[in-house]
């Protein structure tokens, strides 16, 4: 049985080995970019049916960002929306016969988790400056600096392991059941796989939002979140 932790090169471009996951990733990227360009080519004030459907999608992303982060969604829409769309399409690419989702490979998930790690720093520095970003490590008190620093590393790792474990175990279980039982038996498991894939894409995006919201809110001099205790003290009795 092939190890789920290693990937086999599909072909070589010069000296560079290319795995199947990379090909699928580029296919998904082409699909998403091409689809977006095609949909937004002729935008009009009175939307066509396609435009209305995609506006609904963007609206849904916006409302999720607003509810989760308690902030204006505009700066985060592109990042979070793309993250969700890519992981969702990648997880559901298992629907095509012969395609293994690239998120079932450690490398793709590591890349996604690293993107979130860098994005947290980027948004934190952009919202509060370098000083504000560094100050976000000292919340709620400077004693927490080593723990907060460690957390920023371990949560990246846990993002990676969570996505990899969920998607890979789904593919793995379907493979085992198909080899043991036959053609139609793994169908319910594959349906469960699709549900897990959608939920994991959602959770990945939500966790990215939560991390960004945390660092952006902590880096500001006045926290925006209404439920923090500092705000309660500030309100006049």
């Amino acid at each position: 049985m092939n190890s789920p932790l290693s990937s086999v090169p599909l072909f070589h471009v010069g000296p560079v080995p290319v795995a199947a996951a990379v090909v699928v990733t580029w296919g998904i990227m082409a699909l998403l970019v091409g689809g977006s360009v095609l949909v937004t080519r002729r935008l009009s004030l009175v939307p066509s049916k396609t435009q209305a459907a995609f506006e609904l999608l963007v609206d849904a992303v916006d409302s999720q960002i607003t509810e989760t982060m308690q902030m204006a969604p505009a700066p985060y829409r592109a990042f979070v929306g793309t993250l969700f769309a890519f992981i969702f399409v990648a997880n559901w690419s298992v629907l095509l016969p012969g395609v293994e989702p690239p998120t079932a490979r450690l490398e793709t998930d590591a890349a996604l988790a690293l993107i979130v790690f860098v994005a947290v720093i980027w948004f934190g520095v952009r919202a509060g400056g370098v000083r504000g970003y560094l100050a976000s490590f000292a919340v709620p008190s400077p004693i927490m600096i080593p723990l907060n620093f460690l957390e920023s590393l371990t949560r990246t790792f846990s993002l990676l392991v969570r996505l990899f474990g969920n998607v890979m175990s789904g593919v793995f279980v379907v493979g085992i059941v198909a080899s043991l039982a036959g053609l139609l038996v793994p169908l319910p498991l594959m349906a469960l796989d699709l549900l897990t894939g959608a939920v994991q894409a959602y959770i990945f995006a939500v966790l990215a939002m939560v991390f960004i919201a945390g660092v952006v809110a902590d880096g500001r001099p006045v926290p925006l979140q209404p439920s923090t205790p500092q705000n309660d003290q500030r309100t006049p009795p």
Partner: protein
Amino acid sequence: MNWLALASIVSAAVAVSFGAIGPALGEGRAVAAAMDAIARQPEAANTISRTLFVGLAMIETMAIYCLVIALLLLFANPLLK
């Protein structure tokens, strides 16, 4: 089949089976509490289920860690090379 391989296989099975118990109990409690909360306050169902999903993902990660340990033991065991 030497003893090291045997021990790796048994430990992989033990890691997954016992590692799944804790998260399973935790997820059960979390879902029960969320159901209770939604029954009391149906208008907050959106917020509750979103938080529930994120929390479940967090809890589930513990079981996934065990799965990864088991896979490491089975497929990338440095002691068996």
